[in-house]
């Protein structure tokens, strides 16, 4: 009851005062605890073994019926397709695929879509998907399952995955002869990587919606036929019929994952068919055994979170998640050497076909959408996972730092003018006046809520402009590529943010209030981002929380070296700088042989491309990363920069402070805008 009805008369609590003196220590302790908890998650005591939660799936309950003749058909189709590919170097052999689907008795349709690429004066791209529906004999087309295979033209720069089309068709031929399907099966061949899939999904779900033509970049058109509400989808990317291992890809748009049951289902069935399969499965010779269990698990966790944090799907399956359809990709990799073949080459694809059949039959059994098992998990190894309840404390501990500091900063906010002056370190100069004032009653000091609110709104406005400006018509008409355009708009706006604290100086007490507001917004933003995309929230928190803890607006007990370090760190934490540094590290990792200058230059162009891709991803696919960085992280950075500068209205007293920040950041800002 003490929590609600504190019996003491004065509101000043000793505990709070004591804590306030050690804010940083307490916060750093919390930070370390959060990070330590995260590390512990890789220990077997902190994660659990996977299990199938949905009984309807019953994987492996039926005996696989697909035989070697399906494999033979696949081989024959592959040979035909290879001949077609010679004629269609940069296009999809639509006619051949449609003819085959028709031949197997599927209800075949084509779907046309258009992309109006907004940048560089505007261009139009056209694409065509082909899909065939196998109507379920047992139900009136109210539910469906999608089996999709992306087609890459022969001229594509990506790995050749043309074997997935024959495999899919061979399975379609098998499935058409069976009468047990309780859901329509859709066999879908898309082109142009994720774009085709996105267009198909949009057309499937809102094909008849009227589009605002000025804003719609992707015009999906409409579909001639549908197959009810889609329950699940399986995307197949097969490099060759003779496979070495299967990599199960699950990360979807904005870090969403399919239900853990679906992953487990695939794992179970692959294991039954004797295919080496797993999450981020590596070729056999690359699998390291020297690492300890903990290290393996931890690496697995980190790679999963890293690929989740960008929000970019790792395959076409990721776009299904947006429509609440659980989906994953099985990416079968080619066997490296033919010398070690065990079976005859004529039956190489049979296990994979059997696996697809098994997955299809389990999905066919589903009575309702996947809902039993986890949607929020981190996979530590192929048969172990961490659930949301176990990993959330790490993030909560990190975010708690911000809220704790906000509370303690708030409770020590200056209440009277005298306190304010003391906080600003003016007392030495004004000691006599202060003594005079002591005789009077301490005049109440009103915090400048209004101006702080206006300042916050201004920073948010800058972030909002980052989203809107690059897509304005007059900018788009400039004959300039997407990358330079986006980068110049972004750097211009962050330059405004950089200059803002020099131009606008908040009234007394404003900085302290801004600090509290900053901490609250920061904490809220991290929590929300962490809920929507845990990986992004966690990485952002791990990176920025130490700086946020170190930030201090009080002048009295801080050394100038510490201040300047914080300022420098803040500059480095600029979202654009962080993007550049990440790209730089990736470039360095990929091309270690290049000289440093070349790497930096290459990373700069790559970072510019990355920002443009982020923007395009956000308008076409609905990726949130660009929005989050611009609308949340950039304004937060501007506030953070303001706080680290701590400019006060009456700064004639310490001009020496004024010199240092304006000289040191200059070289940094040049790097940023290049």
């Amino acid at each position, binding site marked *: 009851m003490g929590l*609600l*009805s*504190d*019996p*003491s*008369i*004065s*509101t000043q*609590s000793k505990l709070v005062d004591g804590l306030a003196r050690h804010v940083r220590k307490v916060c750093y302790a919390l930070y370390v605890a959060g990070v330590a908890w995260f590390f512990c998650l890789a220990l077997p005591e902190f994660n659990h073994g996977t299990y199938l939660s949905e009984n309807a799936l019953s994987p492996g309950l039926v005996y696989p019926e697909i035989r070697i003749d399906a494999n033979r058909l696949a081989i024959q189709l592959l040979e035909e397709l290879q001949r077609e590919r010679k004629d269609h170097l940069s296009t999809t052999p639509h006619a051949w695929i449609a003819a085959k689907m028709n031949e197997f008795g599927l209800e075949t349709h084509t779907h046309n879509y258009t992309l109006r690429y907004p940048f560089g004066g505007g261009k139009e791209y056209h694409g065509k998907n082909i899909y065939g529906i196998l109507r379920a004999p047992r139900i009136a087309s109210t539910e469906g399952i999608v089996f999709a295979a992306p087609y890459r033209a022969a001229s594509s720069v990506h790995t050749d995955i043309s074997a997935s089309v024959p495999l899919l068709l061979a399975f379609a031929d098998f499935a058409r002869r069976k009468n047990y399907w309780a859901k329509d099966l859709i066999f879908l061949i898309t082109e142009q990587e994720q774009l085709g899939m996105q267009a198909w999904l949009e057309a499937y779900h809102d094909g008849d919606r009227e589009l605002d033509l000025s804003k719609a970049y992707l015009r999906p058109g409409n579909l001639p036929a549908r197959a009810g509400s889609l329950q699940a989808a399986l995307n197949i990317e097969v490099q060759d019929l003779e496979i070495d291992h299967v990599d199960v890809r699950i990360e979807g748009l904005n870090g*969403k*994952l399919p239900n853990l049951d679906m992953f487990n289902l695939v794992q179970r069935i692959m294991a039954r068919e004797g295919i080496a399969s797993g999450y981020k499965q590596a070729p056999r010779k690359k699998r390291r055994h020297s690492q300890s269990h903990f290290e393996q698990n931890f690496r697995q966790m980190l790679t999963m979170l890293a690929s989740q944090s960008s929000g970019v799907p790792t395959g076409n399956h990721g776009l299904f*998640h*947006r429509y*609440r359809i659980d989906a994953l990709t099985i990416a079968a990799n080619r066997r490296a050497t033919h010398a070690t073949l065990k079976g005859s080459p004529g039956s190489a694809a049979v296990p994979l076909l059997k696996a697809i059949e098994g997955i299809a039959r389990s999905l066919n059994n589903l009575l309702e*959408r996947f809902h039993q098992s986890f*949607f*929020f998990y981190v996979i530590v190894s192929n048969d172990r996972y961490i659930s949301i309840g176990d990993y959330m404390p790490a993030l909560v501990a990190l975010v708690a730092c911000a*809220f704790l500091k*906000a*509370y303690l900063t*708030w*409770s020590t906010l200056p209440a009277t003018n005298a306190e304010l002056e003391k906080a600003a370190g003016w007392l030495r100069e004004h000691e006599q006046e202060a003594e005079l004032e002591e005789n009077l009653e301490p005049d109440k000091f009103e915090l400048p809520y209004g101006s702080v609110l206006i300042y916050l709104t201004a920073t948010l406005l800058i972030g909002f402009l980052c989203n809107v400006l690059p897509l304005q018509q007059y900018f788009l008409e400039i004959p300039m590529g997407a990358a330079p355009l986006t980068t110049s708009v972004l750097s211009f706006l962050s330059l405004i943010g950089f200059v803002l604290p020099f131009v606008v100086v908040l009234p007394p007490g404003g900085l302290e209030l801004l600090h509290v507001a900053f901490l*609250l917004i920061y*904490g*809220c933003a991290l*929590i*929300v981002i962490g*809920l*929507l995309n845990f990986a992004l929230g966690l990485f952002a928190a791990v990176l920025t929380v130490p700086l946020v803890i170190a930030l201090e607006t009080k002048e009295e007990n801080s050394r100038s070296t510490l201040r300047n370090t914080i300022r420098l760190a803040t500059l480095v934490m600029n979202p654009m700088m962080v993007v550049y540094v990440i790209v730089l590290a990736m470039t360095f990792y990929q091309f270690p042989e290049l000289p440093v200058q070349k790497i930096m230059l290459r990373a700069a162009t790559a970072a510019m491309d990355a920002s443009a891709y982020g923007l395009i991803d956000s308008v076409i696919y609905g990726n949130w990363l660009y929005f989050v960085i611009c609308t949340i992280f950039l304004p937060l950075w501007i506030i953070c920069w303001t706080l680290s500068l701590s400019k006060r209205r009456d700064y004639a007293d310490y001009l020496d402070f004024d010199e240092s920040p304006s000289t040191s950041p200059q070289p940094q800002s040049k790097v940023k805008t290049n």
Partner: protein
Amino acid sequence: MDSKFFKLLLLGGAVRFYFCRTPLAPMIGNRVEFATPLNSHKRMQEGIFLLQSGIDPYLGDLVHESPLILSALSGLFQKYPQFLPIFYIILDICTAALLYAMSLRFVKQKQDQQDKERKEYAKDTEELQFGPLDKLDIPELVIVAYLFSPLTVMSCIGMTSTVISNLFLAFFFYCLVKGMLIPCLLVLAFETVRSFYPIVLIAPLLLVFSRNSVRRGVAIAALFIVSCLIVAVANYFVLNSWNFLDGTLGFIFYFRDLQPNIGLFWYFFTEMFEHFRTMFLITFQLNATVLYLVPLSIKLRKEPLLLATVLVALMAVFRAYPSLGDVGFYLALLPLWKRCWKFMAHGFVVFTFFLVTLSMMGALWHLWIYAGSANANFYFGATLAFSTGQIFLITDLLFAHVKREFCLFNGQKILIDGEEARIVLK
């Protein structure tokens, strides 16, 4: 009534007008946090359409607005639908103006009361007393808190009928402070027949108007019942049927619509076994109405307006279909108790609670309904935390009031054996 007051009103109207033209407005109108089955604009439209077509709106399970409101607004809805946002904005501004007038009067009453009691006050309690500046400050704070609170702004641009309820409640408060018995009774009776829970506000009304005489109290209570009956009969004549009683009051009492909202009912009644339903219905409704009524009325018999504030706040927490517009209304009343703020220890914590839970609600709703990955438990967790925050606030206000009363007469610095004294509640 200075120029600043009008400027604020205009600015508040302008903010609402700006937002109701953005795509935010239709989005808010569909958010469960603002639009509940009781107050949603869509249902109001449906009701008016049915009424105009000569069909009893309460035969279905969609319309729960009272017939008088439906028929009063039907002309506007049918003929000038483009002016509806303006109409709601004007209503909201009227609410703000009423609150302003009410708080002016309230501060003046407080100052008069203080002048009489001044001799009994302890020495160092000037900051606990209403000062000369408060006459300007408090009404201004009230109006700012109402006009610029995101909760009321959103509620207004979403065109929820909470705007109308807030107007009636503000009118009730105004009449209560002004001492106008009949309008006060009538508006309370109207709100009671419309949304049931305001019945608890009869307690502050009795405290104000009965002036410690039981006979007067009984007479007023009888008058209240009569005016309730009059309102009900007036409602009856709109449709010539009593169906509306079940459609409005019955719908609230029996909690028929389990659509999620920020309250505590929906999750509980979704999870519960059907044969316990009656018992828990009674328990929950008792909790929302009479459970706190008697003890609070006894404790706060000298401060009827604080009692009314607390009751409105409790109503917003515990009612069957609460919306954020209700929360915005009682938050705007808090500045009236500015002199208690010194003792409110949890203001910042509550603010943080509100901020975090409200932003989490959006994210969790998205994850639950659109992404399909989270579930009802996540969302309920956020709303539960939000309600907890509100309870913190109400308790804090009550406790601060008790402390202020004590300190006003006994001084702020009480030392017992060299240690600071602590108040013990017995």
